[in-house]
């Protein structure tokens, strides 16, 4: 099994994601350069955070057109697990693999702080191992992470249980205060209808080591690994 961590010009969590996988989980992972035109040999794809193309124009707007994204869109439609973290989430929305968009934080400020997340569904490759009852703790760090979608889209997300994570307080309650960026319905992460593509603003790649104050992020990657292994054994 091998997991790809895509490198766009301006990605800056690529090393963190790779470490989370190789040092945190001891699974094999490799960088995948944005000019590559194939994902063969990889079983899952991570789009890391950062400022691809400087986030110029719109976050993820330019990265979406890089050669690697064309093949990733195809792979995703064929069911390959794909997760976009922070800037990766923005790219997935721009690429149309996920609905909605991420706009400027309501505060207009970049926000770097820990948040509590409620797991809304275990039915994705990245959340299979997670416990809905226990909120996760990990950092956010973004200037444009406010999730927006038209009412119809939001309704569909809810009814099809595509909301994966929500910002909550320590006890798991959805509150105004626990929403760091003004996201609609406190949405922190979503998946596509097929459930193999997940996007999230918070950083599991910064919460996989006790010394960082939380290992909750590790659980997402462990879920992925288990899902892939069970898929292999079938």
């Amino acid at each position: 099994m091998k997991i790809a961590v895509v490198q766009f010009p301006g990605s800056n969590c690529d090393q963190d994601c790779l470490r989370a996988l190789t040092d945190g989980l001891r699974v094999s992972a490799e960088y995948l350069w944005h000019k590559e035109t194939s994902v063969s040999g990889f079983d899952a794809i991570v789009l890391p955070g950062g400022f691809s193309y400087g986030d110029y124009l719109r976050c993820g707007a330019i990265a979406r057109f890089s050669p690697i994204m064309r093949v990733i869109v195809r792979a995703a439609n064929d069911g390959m697990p794909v997760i976009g973290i922070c800037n990766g989430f923005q790219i997935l929305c721009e690429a149309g693999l996920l609905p909605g968009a991420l706009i400027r934080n309501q505060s207009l400020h970049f926000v770097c702080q820990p948040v509590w997340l409620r797991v809304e569904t275990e039915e994705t490759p990245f959340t299979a191992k997670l416990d809905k009852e226990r909120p996760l703790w990990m950092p956010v760090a973004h200037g444009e992470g406010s999730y927006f979608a038209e009412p119809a889209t939001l309704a569909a997300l809810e009814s099809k249980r595509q909301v994966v994570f929500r910002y909550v307080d320590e006890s798991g309650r959805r509150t105004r205060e626990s929403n760091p960026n003004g996201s609609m319905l406190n949405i922190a992460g979503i998946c596509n209808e097929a459930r193999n593509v997940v996007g999230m603003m918070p950083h599991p790649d910064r919460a996989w080591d006790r010394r960082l104050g939380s290992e909750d992020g590790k659980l997402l990657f462990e879920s992925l690994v288990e899902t892939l292994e069970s898929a292999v054994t079938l």
Partner: protein
Amino acid sequence: MMGALMKVHVIVMPKQSVLDPQGVAVRNALRDYGLDTIESVRVGKFLELEFRTPPGEIKLEELCRDLLSNPVIEDYKIQYHAGAESKQ
């Protein structure tokens, strides 16, 4: 040399349905500044494109839809006349 070039302006604005915190912030700033007749402000992008030979209208529209704006949150408008140089 600049004269030889053809200018196209693209204005990208946040959709009405999308709240525009930056616009709100500017409006409040204007009010605090003493301008109490200000009703609303919306902040968008103004792109000044210079072409050696401009692309066809269809191509340009496609460009605005795919790259220069995000239809989920933004509307765009193309101005062909090269009228709006910024003031010195």
